[in-house]
C-alpha cells in the first residue's frame, strides 16, 4: 500500500526532479560571451584588437607582443594597441561583462525549490515526519519577462565596456601626442638655452675685456639662468608625459625604455566639413547607445514590475506528513503573500521614476554629445588655421627677421647679443607653432572620440572649402595671401538634424 502511494507520489517527485535536472542542464554557465561583440566593435571602430587576459597563455602572448613592440619605435597606433591589450584598468573593466553576464544568467534561473523536513519526537509508535517541497512557480512564469529586462541590461553593459575600450584608446592616443609635443618643446627649449648660453658667454668675455658693466653682466647671467630653469621644467614635463603613457600601456620595468619619434606628426591638409558631424556622433556613440539600452531596460522593467508587483511570488508545493500514529497525508500546497499593505505601489513608482530618469539621462547625454562635437569641431578647425598661419606666415616672417638681423649684424649695425635675441624670438614662435599643432591633434583626437571612435572620410571636405578665418592683418602683408580666406558659413549646417 505504501509502495503504491509512494510510487504515485514519488512519480510526481521524480518528474519534478527530472524537470529540474533537465533545466539544470540548460543552465550551464558559459563564460566569456559578450566579449566577442566588444572585440568586433573595437575592430570595426578603430581597427584594433582587444583581448581578455584570462589565461596564463594569453598573458604570456600579450607580454611577448609588448616586449617586441617596445623595442621598436613606438607609434600612436602601436601605443593604442598595447594599451588595449595590456592596460590593467581595462582588464578590470572587462569583468563588468562577467558581472553583467552573471546577472543575465541569474535572471534566467528559476528559484530553487525548497525542501523542508521535520521530525518530531517522541517517535512513538512511528517517527512523525513532515516534508514539504515548495517551488515558486510565478517566478518561473515571470522568468521570460525578467530575462527580457536582463538582456537589455546586458546589451547596455556590452556597449559601456566597448565605449570604455574606445575611451582608453583615445586617452592613450592623446597621451602619446602629449608626449611628442613635450619632446618637441624640449627641443625648442634646448635651442633657446643655446642662444642664451652663447649670449651669456659673450657677456662674460666682454666683461673680462673690460667692455661692459657689472650690471649688464648680471642681467645676461640672470637671463641665461631663467632659460636653464625653463629647460629643467620642460625636461620634467617630458617625464610626466612618459609616465602617463606607461600607466596607460600598463608597462613597467624594462618595458618602459620604449622610444618614439620626438616630434608631432605633420598636420594633414584635409579640412573638416562639420555639417553631418552631430548626427554622426548621435548615431555612433556607444555610451549613448548604452543609455538608450538603459531606457529600454527601464521600460521593460516597468512593464515587468507592473505585471509582477501585485503578486510577486506564489509557491506551489507538495506536502507529505506522517503522523506518529503512522498515517501519512500528501497533498499540494499553495501559498502567496496577500497584498494588504504592499500591493507594489512603491515598486511601480520606483520603476516609473527609474524609467524617467533613464530617459532624462539619455537626453542629457545627447545634448552634451552634440555640444561637445560642435565645440571640438570648431576647435579643430581653428587649430588647423592657426597651424597653417604659423607655417605659411608667422614662421617665415620670423625666419626673415633672423636673416635680416644677420645682415644688419654683418653690416655692424647691431651686435651679436641683439642678433641672438632676434633668434630667440624665432624659436619662441616655433614653440607656439608646436603648441598649435598639439592643439590640432588633441582636438582631432577628442573629436574622433566624441564622434564614436573615428572620423570617416566623408567628414573631410577637399581643401579650399571656406570657413571663418583667423583674424590677420590686411593689406601690406604680402606673405599672407595664401592664408587669407573670407568669412564663411561655419555655423550653419551642423545642428538641424533631429535627435
Amino acid at each position, binding site marked *: 500500500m505504501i509502495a503504491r502511494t509512494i510510487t504515485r507520489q514519488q512519480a510526481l517527485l521524480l518528474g519534478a526532479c527530472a524537470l529540474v535536472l533537465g533545466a539544470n542542464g540548460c543552465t550551464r554557465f558559459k563564460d566569456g560571451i559578450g566579449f566577442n561583440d566588444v572585440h568586433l566593435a573595437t575592430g570595426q571602430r578603430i581597427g584594433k584588437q582587444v583581448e581578455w587576459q584570462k589565461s596564463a597563455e594569453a598573458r604570456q602572448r600579450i607580454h611577448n607582443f609588448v616586449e617586441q613592440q617596445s623595442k621598436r619605435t613606438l607609434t600612436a597606433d602601436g601605443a593604442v594597441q598595447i594599451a588595449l591589450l595590456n592596460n590593467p584598468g581595462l582588464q578590470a573593466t572587462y569583468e563588468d561583462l562577467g558581472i553583467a553576464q552573471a546577472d543575465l544568467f541569474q535572471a534566467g534561473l528559476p528559484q530553487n525549490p525548497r525542501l523542508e523536513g521535520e521530525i518530531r519526537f517522541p517517535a512513538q509508535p512511528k517517527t512523525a515526519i513532515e516534508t514539504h517541497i515548495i517551488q515558486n512557480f510565478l517566478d518561473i512564469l515571470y522568468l521570460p519577462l525578467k530575462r527580457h529586462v536582463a538582456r537589455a541590461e546586458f546589451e547596455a553593459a556590452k556597449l559601456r565596456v566597448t565605449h570604455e575600450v574606445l575611451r582608453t584608446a583615445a586617452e592613450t592616443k592623446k597621451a602619446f601626442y602629449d608626449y611628442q609635443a613635450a619632446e618637441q618643446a624640449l627641443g625648442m627649449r634646448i635651442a633657446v638655452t643655446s642662444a642664451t648660453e652663447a649670449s651669456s658667454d659673450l657677456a662674460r668675455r*666682454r666683461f673680462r675685456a673690460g667692455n661692459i658693466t657689472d650690471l649688464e653682466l648680471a642681467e645676461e647671467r640672470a637671463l641665461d639662468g631663467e632659460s636653464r630653469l625653463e629647460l629643467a621644467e620642460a625636461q620634467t614635463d617630458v617625464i610626466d608625459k612618459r609616465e602617463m603613457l606607461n600607466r596607460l600601456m600598463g608597462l613597467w620595468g624594462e618595458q618602459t625604455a620604449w622610444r618614439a619619434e620626438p616630434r608631432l606628426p605633420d598636420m594633414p591638409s584635409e579640412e573638416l566639413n562639420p555639417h553631418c558631424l552631430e548626427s554622426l556622433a548621435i548615431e555612433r556613440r556607444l555610451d549613448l547607445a548604452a543609455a538608450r539600452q538603459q531606457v529600454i531596460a527601464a521600460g521593460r522593467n516597468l512593464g515587468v514590475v507592473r505585471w509582477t508587483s501585485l503578486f510577486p511570488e506564489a509557491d506551489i508545493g507538495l506536502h507529505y506528513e506522517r503522523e506518529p500514529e503512522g498515517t501519512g497525508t500528501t497533498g499540494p500546497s499553495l501559498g502567496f503573500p496577500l497584498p494588504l499593505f504592499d500591493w507594489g505601489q512603491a515598486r511601480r513608482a520606483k520603476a516609473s521614476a527609474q524609467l524617467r530618469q533613464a530617459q532624462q539621462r539619455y537626453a542629457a547625454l545627447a545634448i552634451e554629445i552634440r555640444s561637445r562635437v560642435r565645440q571640438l569641431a570648431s576647435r579643430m578647425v581653428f587649430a588647423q588655421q592657426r597651424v597653417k598661419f604659423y607655417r605659411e606666415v608667422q614662421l617665415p616672417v620670423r625666419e626673415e627677421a633672423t636673416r635680416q638681423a644677420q645682415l644688419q649684424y*654683418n*653690416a*655692424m649695425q647691431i651686435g651679436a647679443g641683439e642678433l641672438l635675441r632676434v633668434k630667440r624670438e624665432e624659436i619662441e614662435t616655433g614653440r607656439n607653432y608646436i603648441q598649435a599643432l598639439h592643439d590640432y591633434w588633441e582636438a582631432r583626437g577628442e573629436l574622433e572620440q566624441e564622434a564614436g571612435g573615428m572620423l570617416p572620410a566623408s567628414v573631410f571636405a577637399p581643401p579650399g572649402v571656406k570657413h571663418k578665418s583667423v583674424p590677420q592683418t590686411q593689406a601690406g602683408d604680402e606673405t599672407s595671401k595664401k592664408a587669407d580666406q573670407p568669412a564663411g558659413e561655419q555655423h550653419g549646417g551642423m545642428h538641424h538634424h533631429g535627435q
Partner: protein
Amino acid sequence: MANELTRRKMIISSAAALTGGAAAMKGMPALADATTPEHSHKQSALATEGPHANRQRLPPGRPGQDYTPVITPNGWTLPYKLVDGVKVFHLVAEEVEHEFAPGLRAKCWGFNGGVHGPTIEVVEGDRVRIYVTNKLSAGTSTHWHGIFLPNGMDGVAGLTQRIIRPGGTFKYEFTLRQHGTHMYHSHHDEMTQMALGTMGLFIIHPRNPERPRPDRDFAFMLSEWQIPVGTSRPNPNEMTDFNVFTFNARVFPGTEPTVAKLGDRVRIRLANLGAMDHHPIHLHGYHFPVIETDGGQIRESAWQTETTVLVGVGQTRTFEFIADAPGDWPLHCHMTHHVMTQMGDKFPNMIGVKPGDLDEKVRSILPDYMRMGHAGMGEKMEMEMPANSVPMLGGDGPFDYITMGGLFTILKVRSDLESYDDPGWYEHPPGTVADRAGAIDMDRDGIAGDGSSASKIPDSARPAYRQKMPPK
C-alpha cells in the same frame, strides 16, 4: 679789401661797354685796397638801401674768358640763356633717386634731376633771372645765401615772398654786386627740405680779380644725412645721429678725385649746409691760407695758414695753394666718424674680447654667424649685407683696402698729365714708399723687430707717478 665795385669803377666799365670795348674790361687795373670807413660801410648789407641799390648791371661775364670755370666734383654747372644781357637760369626742385656711392641709393629732393642742385656760376655785375619750378610734393622757396639783393628776392617763404606751391614757378631777379663762394637752399620747412638735399653752390667770380686766376678751381658742398642701413630714404627728423656725410652728395669711394698738374694754382671752395655738424676739412701734404669766407676775401695780412679748416654750418671757406707735391693726397673731414659711411654706433664694443669657442656655440643656431669687431673695424668682411647698403669703410686702394668712407676724397697731383681725367693711382718713385723695414736697415740702426729695442715710458711720464712733496 673791396668785394664790390665802387661807383667810379662802374661808370668806367659801363662806359667801356657803351663804346663796345668789352675787351677793355679784362685789362682793368686792379684797384687799391679800399680800407676806408666809407668803403667798409658800403660793403655791408645795409648798403642795399643806399646808392648801391638798383646797381646798374654790367655785361655778362664769360666762362673761360672772364673766369676759370669752377669744377663741382660729382656735380655740374647750370647752363644759362642770355636774354638781353641777362643770364637766365631755370631750377626745377624735384624728387630724385640719388646714388651716394655704388650700392647705396636713396630718394632725395634735388634740382634738375640731380642731388645736390647744379652750381650756379656768375660774375660780379651780372644780372641774373632765376626761375624756380617746384615739382616737389611740398611748398618751397629758394634763398640765396650771403648775397646782396632786394629784400623781396631773399627767398624766405612767408616773410619776403609767398610759398612756391607744388606745380608753381617763381621768378627771382637781381644784379650781383659782390664776389665769393655762396650757396642757395630751400627756405621753407628747411629742416626737412635741406635734410633731403635741396641746396646747391652759387659761385660769383670777381669782375676785377685782384689775385691771379687759379688753374684749378674746385667747389664742394658739405652735407649730412641719416639713412638707416637697408632703407632708401633719408630721415629728415634726425637731429644728432647722422650716418652719411657727403662731399657734393657723394661718399668715398663714390667721390670723384680732384686732379691737378704739378705747379697748378689750386683753389678749393667748401660750403657747409649740413643740419648740425661743422666739419674740420683736412688736406694731406700741404698747408694753405684760407683766403675767403662767405663774407668776402680775407686780406693777405690777415691770412691764417692751416692744414685743417673748420667750416661751420652755414659758412663757406675757400683756400688756395700751389700743387707742388706730387702724389695722391687725401682731402677729408677730420672727425673720425665722418669718414665712415653708415657707421652703426649701436654695435657693442668687441675690442679685446677673446672669442674662444663662442663662434661654434652661436653657429649651432645661427649658421652664418662670424665674429666681428675684435680688432676694430679694419677687416674687410666678405659677408652678405642688407639690401641698399655699402660697407662702412671703403674701397680698394693700390696697396691694400682703404678703410675710409664718408667725407673723403683724393687730390691727385701729377707731373705729367695729358688731360685732367682721373690718372689712376700715383706711381711712387722708388725708395719713397714706407714698407717693411729690411734686415740690413734694422741691424744698422739697432732695431729689434719685436719692439724690445724701443725705449719704454719713463716713470716720470707715468700717470701713477706723484710729484714728491718738498721736505717741510
